[in-house]
C-alpha cells in the first residue's frame, strides 16, 4: 500500500490504555492532498489516533510512518522537526488564553521563524482573512464564540503552511451555520493549499460531503473503509448502524455487563462482549 502518494501510514497498530485495548491491529493510509475522514462512535479513542500520529503517544506495537519515516522511533529532535510539518486542530480550539487572537496565530511564526514583525503581521492577517476573522484579531480568545474560536485555531493551525492538518471533531457542538462555515473552510483549505487533511468526527452527513476516503472505527478495529459512495452502499450492519444512527445494533446500546444483569433486564445477548 505504501507508495509515493501516501503521506501517513498506520501499520498493525496496537495501543492499550492501562489494560484496556483501544486499538487492536489496525491499518490505515492517508493519501497526500486528500481529505480522509475517520469516523466512529464517541469514546473509541479517535483523538488518541491523532496523538499517536503526532508522536505524543507511543503505540504498544505496530508502526506509524510519516512520509516513510517511523514516528515512534524518531529522536526528539527529528520528531519536533516533523511536527513543524503537521498541524492539529483540537476539539476545544486550544487557543492560548492569555494572548490575543493575533498573537495566537503569530505564535508559531515567531517561535519557528526569524521573520520581521512586518512580514508576520502580513501573514497573520492573510491567515485570519482566510477564516474570516481579520476583524477579530485584537480580541482575546475568551471573547470569541465557540465557532469563532475554532476558526481562529484553524488560522493558527495553518500559520506555518503545514503538509498535514488533523481536525479533531471540528463540528462537535457547532450550530448549523458555523458547521457549514467549517465544512466549507476545510474543503477550501484542502484544495487551495494542497493540504492533506485527516478529519476525525462522528458527524456523518457533513463529512461524507467533503471526504475523499472514509474509515469507520468501532470495537477497536476498522469496520469499514472506502470512498463516501462505497461506504453509503456498504452492506455491513455495523456501518449502516453508524450511518443511520440507530440506537441498538452491532454496536450495543448497553455498556458491556454480566449475564445476570442482562437477564434481569430481559435484554438480548447480542453484542455483549464476552
Amino acid at each position, binding site marked *: 500500500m505504501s507508495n509515493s502518494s501516501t503521506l501517513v501510514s498506520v501499520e498493525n497498530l496496537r495501543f492499550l490504555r492501562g489494560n484496556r485495548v483501544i486499538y487492536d491491529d489496525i491499518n490505515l493510509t492517508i493519501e497526500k492532498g486528500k481529505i480522509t475522514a475517520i469516523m466512529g462512535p464517541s469514546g473509541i479513542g479517535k483523538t488518541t489516533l491523532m496523538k499517536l500520529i503526532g508522536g505524543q503517544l507511543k503505540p504498544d506495537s505496530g508502526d506509524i510512518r510519516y512520509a516513510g519515516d517511523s514516528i515512534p522511533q524518531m529522536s526528539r529532535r527529528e520528531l519536533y522537526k516533523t511536527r513543524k510539518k503537521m498541524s492539529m486542530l483540537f476539539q*476545544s480550539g486550544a487557543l492560548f488564553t492569555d494572548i490575543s487572537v493575533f498573537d495566537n496565530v503569530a505564535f508559531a511564526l515567531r517561535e519557528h521563524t526569524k521573520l520581521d514583525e512586518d512580514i508576520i503581521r502580513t501573514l497573520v492577517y492573510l491567515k485570519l482573512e482566510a477564516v474570516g476573522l481579520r476583524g477579530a484579531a485584537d480580541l482575546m480568545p475568551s471573547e470569541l464564540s465557540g465557532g469563532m474560536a475554532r476558526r481562529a485555531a484553524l488560522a493558527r493551525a495553518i500559520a506555518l503552511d503545514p503538509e498535514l492538518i488533523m481536525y479533531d471533531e471540528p463540528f462537535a457542538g457547532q450550530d448549523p451555520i458555523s458547521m457549514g462555515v467549517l465544512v466549507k473552510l476545510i474543503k477550501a483549505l484542502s484544495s487551495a493549499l494542497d493540504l492533506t487533511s485527516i478529519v476525525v468526527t462522528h458527524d456523518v452527513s457533513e463529512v461524507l460531503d467533503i471526504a475523499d476516503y472514509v474509515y469507520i472505527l468501532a470495537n477497536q478495529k476498522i469496520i469499514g473503509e472506502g470512498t463516501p459512495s462505497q461506504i453509503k452502499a456498504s452492506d455491513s450492519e455495523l456501518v449502516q448502524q453508524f450511518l443511520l444512527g440507530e440506537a441498538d445494533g452491532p454496536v450495543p446500546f448497553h455498556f458491556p455487563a454480566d449475564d445476570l444483569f442482562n437477564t434481569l433486564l430481559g435484554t438480548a445477548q447480542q453484542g455483549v462482549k464476552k
Partner: protein
Amino acid sequence: MNYLQSIGYNTLNALTGFGRALLMLVGAIIAVPQRKNIRLTVHQIYVVGVQSLLIIMVSGLFIGMVMALQGYTILVNYGAEGSLGPMVALSLLRELGPVVTALLFAGRAGSALTAEIGLMKATEQLSSLEMMAVDPLRRIIAPRFWAGVIAMPMLALIFSAIGILGGHLVGVDWLGVDAGSYWSIMQATVEWDKDVVNGIIKSFVFAVVVTWIAIFKGYDAIPTSEGISQATTQTVVYSSLAVLGLDFVLTALMFGIN
C-alpha cells in the same frame, strides 16, 4: 493481604510520582537559555513576584508589629526591652521571613501556578504546543520554575526588612523603646553571613521546593475540573508540609550544630 497490597501499590505510586516530577524538572531546566526565555521568565517574575508583593509586605509589617508587641511585654519584665531589636530581627531573618514567605507564596502564587498549568493541560494548550513543535517543558514550565526560584528569596528579604521596620514602629514609636538601642543592639547581635545569608539560603531551598511542587502538580493534574481543584489543594498542603519539615532540617544544619 489486601492491606499489604495497597501499601505496595501506594509506595509504587509515590515513587513513580517522584520519578515523573524529577524527569519533568530535568526536561525543563536542562536547556540552553534563550533570549526569548529570559523575557518569558521576567514576565513570570511579574506574575509570581510582583503580584505577591502586596500580601508579603502587609504580612511582614503585621508580623513585625506583633512580634514587637509580644516581645516587649515579656522582655520588659526583665528590664531587657533593649533586646527587642535583636529579638525581632533574628526571628524574622532566621525563621519567619523565609518560612512565612514560603507559606504565603504557596498559597498565593503556588496554587495559581498549579491551576494555570492544569487548565492549560485540560484545555489542550499543552498538547497544542507540543504539536506546534514547541516543548511545553521549556516554554511553559521552565520560565515559571526560574521565576519562582528567583522571586521567593527576594520576597523573603523584603518581608524581613518590612517586619523589622514594623517592629520599630511598635517597639520604638509606640511603646517607647529607645531607638538607639533598638538598632545598635540589633547591629551588635545580627551577623551578616550567619543570620542574613542563612536566611536567604533557606528561602532559596523553599523556593525550589514550593515552585517545583506547584508546577508538577499542575503538569501532572488529571485534566478535569475536579482533578485541578484536587491538584491545587495538594500544592498548598504538600508545599506547606515540605517547607515546615525542611525548615527543621535546615535550622538544625545551620544553627543547631556549632
